[in-house]
């Protein structure tokens, strides 16, 4: 490989993607360990240390998966994509590389701090304040790189990915910066602190991570299928609705309690409207993929992106269901919410990220993928594992919610309602981890060129027809 030919920002993208994969493996491993402790509580006697406690493992794994795996990975693939869709190359590769390293440093510091010192207890913000500052600084560097050329190339390609990217780039620093300032920078009354935590939770999930995922879907699906989104107006409406309603979705995590009731009601309405938004975007995806089933079946990237796109719609339909006025009071403090995040993180964003890496890394690194059965393992283990874990948690949450609502069920037996489902969840999460290990091994092998390259676009094994899909025009 001639390194001088690699575009600026390519190393920064690789640092972010490799960091993301490492974070996914460690985060999923810790999540597995934490859930096993729920099933076998006496396991904590094995290592009687604070860092081995469920209360440390659970937030540490959530932080790693959310900021380390998804945040880092999505920024990494966008760093490969942005100069190509804007047609303007990055100029300050070293600065971007520094930003990528700073992001990894923030993840490592946040993870070790949560494990050793504990979580902050704030929803969506378990990390200490200095880690948030590092994340914002790093994001400003990476985000400046990502926005370069966005305005000047506005009309030269599809509009929707640019709009979603713009939204995500604004939401992260605005949301995290203001939440940090209000929660840990000033003396904010406790009653307002909870509102602020849920506001940041909404920004983080629905206005930062989700738009990054949707931007990749609307950029890569048309490229890989060779079709354009059929209705720009529908897409625009969905984008505006996402920007308007996304920030309200966190308030449905509370029921009664300290959040003003009008905010909770607005959250319910926003959740239901977001389901329609997701269905609208789903219709656009349907038009992009219709009749291309054979290609989707064969091409790894396209299959992951399609599953990710459908899981996006499923996430918001499930969110609307959990927010319904007669469902929310029953399900509010149950593991049905982790089920939602299993769909959101592992099926929607995880699949979009994997599909994007398969589609874009060969472009950014001038490499190809081997014709390996590890690709099949990656797809089936991660999608089936995440779907099974989400189903198990949703069923467990339903029983837990019904038990919580029945005063006749003793409090001491509440956890026993979860146990049968925890078996399924732990097995499913292990299955997901196996798939991710397969992905990590095929990625490392491809980067090190340990296997002969079959095609620039990864395809599943035993092809009847191998189509190295037309990604040539992505080479900017």
């Amino acid at each position, binding site marked *: 490989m001639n390194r001088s030919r690699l575009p600026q920002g390519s190393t920064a993208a690789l640092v972010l993607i490799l960091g993301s994969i490492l974070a996914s493996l460690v985060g999923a491993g810790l999540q597995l360990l934490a859930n096993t*402790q*729920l099933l076998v*509580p*006496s396991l*904590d*006697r094995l290592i009687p*240390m*604070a860092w081995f*406690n*469920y*209360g*440390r493992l659970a*937030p540490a794994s959530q932080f790693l998966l959310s900021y380390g795996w998804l945040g880092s990975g999505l920024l990494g693939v966008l760093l490969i994509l942005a100069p190509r869709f804007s047609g303007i190359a990055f100029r300050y590769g070293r600065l971007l590389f520094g930003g990528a390293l700073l992001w990894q440093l923030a993840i490592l510091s946040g993870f070790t701090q949560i494990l050793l010192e*504990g979580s*902050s*207890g*704030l929803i969506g913000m378990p990390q200490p304040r200095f880690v948030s500052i590092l994340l914002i600084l790093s994001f400003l560097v990476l985000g400046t790189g990502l926005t370069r050329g*966005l305005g000047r190339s*506005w009309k030269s390609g599809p*509009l929707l990915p640019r*709009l979603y990217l*713009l*939204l995500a780039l*604004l*939401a992260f620093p*605005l*949301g995290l910066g*203001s939440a940090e300032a209000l*929660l840990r920078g000033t003396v*904010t*009354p*406790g*009653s*307002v*602190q*909870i*509102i*602020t935590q*849920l*506001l940041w939770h*909404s920004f983080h999930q629905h206005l930062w991570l989700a738009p990054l995922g949707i931007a990749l879907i609307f950029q890569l699906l048309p490229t890989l299928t060779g079709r354009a989104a059929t209705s720009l107006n529908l897409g625009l409406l969905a984008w*505006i609705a996402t*920007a*308007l309603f996304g*920030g309200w979705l966190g*308030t449905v*995590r*509370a*029921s009664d*309690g*300290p*959040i003003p009731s009008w905010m909770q009601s607005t959250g319910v309405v926003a959740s239901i409207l977001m389901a329609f938004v997701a269905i609208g975007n789903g219709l656009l995806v349907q038009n992009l993929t219709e009749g291309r089933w054979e290609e989707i079946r064969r091409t790894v990237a396209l299959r992951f992106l399609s599953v990710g796109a459908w899981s996006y719609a499923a996430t918001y339909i499930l969110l609307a269901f959990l927010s319904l006025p007669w469902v929310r009071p029953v399900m509010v*403090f*149950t593991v049905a919410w982790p089920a939602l995040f299993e769909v959101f993180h592992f099926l929607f964003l995880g699949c979009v990220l994997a599909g994007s890496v398969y589609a874009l890394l060969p472009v950014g690194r001038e490499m190809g993928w081997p014709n390996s059965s590890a690709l099949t393992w990656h797809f089936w283990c991660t999608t089936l594992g995440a779907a099974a874990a989400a189903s198990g948690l949703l069923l467990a949450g339903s029983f837990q919610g019904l038990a*919580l*609502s*029945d*005063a006749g069920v003793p*409090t*001491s037996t509440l956890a026993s309602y979860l146990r049968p489902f925890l078996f399924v969840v732990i097995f499913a999460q292990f299955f997901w981890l196996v798939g991710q290990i397969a992905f990590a091994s095929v990625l490392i092998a491809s980067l090190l060129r340990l296997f002969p390259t079959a095609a620039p676009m990864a395809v599943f094994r035993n092809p009847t027809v191998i189509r190295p899909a037309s990604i040539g025009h992505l080479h900017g």
Partner: protein
Amino acid sequence: MKPTRALAIAFGALLLTWVAQAAVGYLQVGRLEPVLNEETNLTVPPVPSGLAHTGARVFASQGCLECHSLSARGPKDSADLTRGWGQRRSVARDYLFRDPAMLGTARIGPDLSNIGARMPEGDKLMQHLYDPRLLKKNSTCPTHPWLFVKKPAGPKAEPDALQVSPDGWHQLLPSYHAKALVAYLQSLNANYALPEAPLK
């Protein structure tokens, strides 16, 4: 759509969301004040002690929120009050002096918004922290032995030593963090009426 218009719409939508929740939220619940409880002639909610304030951070750092909520809901929405988790629903005023203010998102264990009234005995709370299965055999709550110091048992037990001994030869003394955590849990006592939330 022009990029400047897109930028204005995105920024405007985010700002609107932020202002509507944080700023209006502040105007609605951030300016609440303590009220006088006519029975005790004290203002409620009470300001937590310095030790309890430290305990709130210990509570967060031990990850108790992964399984416990801090918000009792009213009878219309839940069975929380029938379960005895509180004598009234939690309202915004209850969180006035809490820093960090915590809500919790899961109930694998019981709600703790009124644990100070339900379990006021410090030694029971200490035992629960050391090993929850000493009090409830099937508890899924993890142990926290690092919050205690093991010392050889002398002829006379130290006044704050736990009533359990790990091996008969040692006594367990609560660390500063354990004392702070228990002080925080004891401060979670909402057995007083508020204008917007009378006792049931």
